[in-house]
């Protein structure tokens, strides 16, 4: 064999190429770019205009809502995007074709992670800019809060990504994926205190939401964007930062195990 090991492609080098390709394809799907990126801004504009009242001293509903939308952004760009996109790739034969090449499976997932990371950063940046410009949202005041935000974005996005990959096996067809995935996300958003003040929700709803990671992501985002004085208004009377990260990390591990066990390259 005349193959030299020196310049052989590695899982990482192929993964980076996959990431480049994923981004290129994403950017060319104008409708979905506009929908994924602008829809949260439209929601922000609507909710910010309808509920212009203050919910606590120095805290407007818009601020509360922006924190929730940033957490939702983690779910939209990871879980929702992948759980809809991967079933389509499965249906179109993209995955089977890739399976027939020497591309390592990990490279495919590296590519997806790159796509999620980039779209998540764009999403968060857009929400922050719009929030600051139009809805009087305050950026994190201390370095510590920025660090907390960075940690939340990294862990939350990773969690959302693996859950999206795992959930991609649930929709039976590519075409039907959006109908299966979107309601899950929307219901979770309602339950998790994105559209309403979490503590105003019925107790049972809070209990259900507390099982899933989105509730903890929104609470984590509030701990970044709302003044610390607001912490007393949370269910536990404080931000529960340790618990927040622990539960998101637990879902990350669970999602990873689930994804590894269930991922299929072909439709049955």
């Amino acid at each position, binding site marked *: 064999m005349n193959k030299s090991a020196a310049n052989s492609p590695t899982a990482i080098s192929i993964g980076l190429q996959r990431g480049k*390709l994923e981004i290129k394809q994403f950017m060319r799907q104008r409708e979905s770019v506009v929908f994924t990126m602008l829809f949260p801004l439209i929601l922000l504009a609507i909710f910010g205009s309808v509920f212009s009242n203050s919910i606590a001293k120095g805290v407007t509903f818009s601020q509360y809502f922006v924190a929730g939308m940033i957490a939702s952004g983690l779910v939209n760009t990871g879980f929702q995007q992948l759980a809809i996109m991967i079933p389509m790739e499965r249906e*179109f034969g*993209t995955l*089977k074709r890739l399976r*027939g*090449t020497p591309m390592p499976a990990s490279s495919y997932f590296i590519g997806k992670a790159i796509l999620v990371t980039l779209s998540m950063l764009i999403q968060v940046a857009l929400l922050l800019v719009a929030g600051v410009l139009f809805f009087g949202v305050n950026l994190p005041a201390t370095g510590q809060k920025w660090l907390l935000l960075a940690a939340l974005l990294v862990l939350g996005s990773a969690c959302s990504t693996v859950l999206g990959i795992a959930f991609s096996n649930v929709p039976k067809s590519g075409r039907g994926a959006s109908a299966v995935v979107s309601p899950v996300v929307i219901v979770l958003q309602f339950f998790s205190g994105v559209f309403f003040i979490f503590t105003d929700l019925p107790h049972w709803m809070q209990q259900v939401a507390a099982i899933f990671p989105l509730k903890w992501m929104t609470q984590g985002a509030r701990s970044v964007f709302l003044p610390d004085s607001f912490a007393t208004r949370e269910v536990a009377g404080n931000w529960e930062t340790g618990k927040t990260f622990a539960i998101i990390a637990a879902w990350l591990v669970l999602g990873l195990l689930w994804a590894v066990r269930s991922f299929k390259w072909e439709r049955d």
Partner: protein
Amino acid sequence: MNTVINVSNLRKSYGSTTAVNGVDLEIKKGEIFALLGPNGAGKTTTIEILEGFRDRDSGDVRVLDFDPATKGHAGQLWRDRLGIVLQSTLDAGDLTVYESVSHFAHYYDSPKDAREVIELVGLTDKSNALGRTLSGGQRRRLDVALGIIGNPELIFLDEPTTGFDPEARRAFWVLIKKLRDEGATIILTTHYLDEAEALADRVAVINKGQIIEVSTPDQLGGRAHSLATITWREGDYVRSERSAHPTDFVQKLSVKFGGEIPELSVKRASLEDIYLEMIGITHE
């Protein structure tokens, strides 16, 4: 290593349905080998086991001296030497031909040049066209380009020319022969018997999970020795006769007509006739 694929006593069932029931195959380096069979005969299952997409129940399988059921890194090294062209896919519509082909080149250790491959499949004019703007035949050629970019020793082609117009099929056959002449071994499944006849060095007919016969296209099913059919016009009627000695028969006819025989034709059984007969017989 002269044998590229070696299969003995391959078996695979899905529940109570036996898809592959003891298949033996030996495919040599540098040949174009066609696997023919009706839908549900076990063709796809056999091929997918060879490609490593499906696990077998029992039997020995060696492809490029490797067991396709092996998982992990060794499997990736093996895939580096394969080219798989699946049945029609719809992916990569938002990428240009060049982007897709040059991207797939990154997967392989010693790929061919993307521009050369695009030229080889006749898509140079479409290099910068998005996948979704290609016609069916152009898409299929892109599929082939993606299958051969890794410079494979062995190429699987699954119904490569379905949906082609006759001209495009002929051009495609030239391409396949060119790949073989460059040293690749090619396994072809097709529903077109004329395609198998034009391309294949050997054909195997599979039915009900078993190989019925392996032969050259002109020898399959005793075709070379089959009776010839002679037809001609006699007054208002078209008459026909099957004969083992057609030359003799035509000579006698010619004497009878005093020279030219009206609307004469002499035909051997086509590969399709033979194939249908083989499949039909085993159906009974």
